[in-house]
């Protein structure tokens, strides 16, 4: 799948600023507000940027607007006000016919999985590739390998209804990452899986991040956030109130492997993280 917009799409976007695939930003929110119908705003004056190759957690209490913010990024909803830019393009100005091209650059792990119940696990993972027009023979082995990696190698032909919550979660993650998207969004991706598998999934995200994928993970799992040592965007009552870069607690942290936890350090050439927060608040 091409990572660049088609010429037609690029022309239609009328991008205000050119999107540099090496610096981004991949996502930029400026004074974004969002409401459902006539209800009060669930997101208020949200502004931030996600540079290319960055890795962020999105935290906040239930109802803070985490899922709504993700929905704006994966183009399930529109902002009520403000500007949302994806890959350098103002989504309000992108022609509707070109939105699918933007969506294909984003992998999403939905909170409620959103697996297709009538398709076996293998076909669920193949879905984004089918939509992108890939021939089955070109991705069959890749999917088998990916499913094996997430621990579903023995359940490739299983129907989602027969899988446990954790298995469904891993299946949803496999589907989200199978295209090696430029931007990966995950809404509580470790909500239903055990700590060991949570860590494995996190390693996958980190690995994808190292390969250039920008990652944003909404989670309640403060333990995971703390151990990953990645910057945090915190939402509270619809406002992005602080940024933080958590570091794993040194003494009690179990061994999560060389990529994570205390040993994890950003790559030397990792781009500078940029923020555009109103009232930033650092956190140790």
């Amino acid at each position: 799948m091409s990572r660049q917009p088609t010429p037609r799409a690029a022309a239609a976007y009328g991008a205000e600023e050119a999107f540099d695939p090496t610096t981004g930003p991949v996502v930029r929110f400026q004074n974004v507000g969002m409401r459902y119908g006539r209800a009060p705003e669930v997101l208020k004056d949200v502004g931030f940027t996600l540079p290319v190759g960055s890795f962020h957690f999105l935290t906040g209490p239930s109802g803070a607007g985490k899922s709504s913010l993700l929905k704006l990024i994966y183009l399930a909803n529109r902002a009520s006000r403000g500007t949302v830019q994806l890959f350098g393009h103002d989504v309000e100005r992108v022609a509707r016919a070109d939105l699918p091209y933007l969506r294909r650059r984003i992998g999403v792990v939905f909170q409620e999985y959103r697996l297709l119940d009538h398709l076996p696990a293998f076909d669920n993972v193949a879905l984004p590739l089918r939509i992108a027009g890939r021939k089955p023979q070109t991705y069959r082995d890749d999917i088998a390998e990916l499913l094996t990696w997430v621990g579903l190698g023995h359940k490739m032909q299983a129907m989602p209804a027969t899988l446990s919550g954790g298995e469904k979660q891993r299946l949803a993650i496999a589907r989200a990452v199978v295209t090696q998207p430029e931007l990966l969004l995950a809404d509580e991706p470790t909500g239903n899986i055990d700590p060991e598998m949570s860590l494995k999934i996190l390693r996958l995200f980190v690995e994808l991040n190292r390969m250039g994928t920008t990652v944003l993970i909404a989670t309640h799992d403060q333990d995971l956030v703390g151990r990953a040592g990645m910057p945090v965007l915190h939402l509270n009552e619809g406002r992005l109130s602080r940024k933080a870069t958590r570091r794993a607690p040194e003494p009690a942290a179990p061994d999560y492997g060389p990529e994570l936890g205390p040993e994890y350090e950003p790559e030397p050439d990792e781009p500078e993280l940029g923020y555009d927060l109103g009232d930033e608040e650092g956190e140790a």
Partner: protein
Amino acid sequence: MSLSDAPGPRWRPAPLLPRDEEREVSLHFVVAVLCFLACLMAVGGVSADRAARGWARDLRGEATIQVRPRLGETGDEAAARAAEAVAGVRGVTEAAALEKQKAEALLEPWLGKAVLQDLPIPHLVTVRLDRAHPATATDLKKALDRAGVDADVDDHARWLKDVERSAGVVRWAVAILFSLTAAAAAAVIAFATRAGMAARRDVVEVLHLTGAKDAFIANLFQLRFARLAAVSGVFGAGAAAAVTALIELVGGGQGFTPALPLTWMDLLTVSPCPLVAATVAALSARLTTLRLLRGTL
């Protein structure tokens, strides 16, 4: 790493739209019935058109001359003279005086035998015209005038107009009924598509958010309902063909009635039904899907 559960090299992705057996059985039945009715209408229309053409051809191929004998001349003599006069006219293939007994036999069912004896029976000449280049009433009248025969010529033009008008009405009626049936089928498919999209909103949303274009999603519904309608069309057309064949068999080689002459070739009339049904269903499903998707981001 075990890939034992991985699909084989001949693996093909499963259909993206789940089957809804219960709904599809009902839909099959409704569409098959509509196809059946449409096919019967088509066969009936073809047959009625054939009957109307036959009547018109018969009327165009004949003329009737009513002769009034001169003083001292019998009706039979006058009719014979008239027949002789028009027999040589170009466009006439045969002219014959209708014998008095035959004329009485024609009128007897309407007037009764007793009354006929007291009534003056018209002296008639039946004229068969060349179907390719028939003589006109004017030609016949001129020939009769030249021969000194006092007569009126009836070329059946009045009846011909009525028959042609009736045939036109039948053709329009069949076309309108056929269109209404097709529209009903399209409406049923549109309703089913809407219901299918509502029932599988989860599938549509996932496809949509995973980057599927509207056309991709529309193709799924389009193919699903086109296949369904094609199968229903086969059943509907088959049933209509069976009924047509039964009518043909019951009616014998001459057709069921003179008003509805059927032929074995009429069975071919139903053959496009599956294709037409599939096309109508595909268009309806596609337009419905695209319209519904257009309301989303």
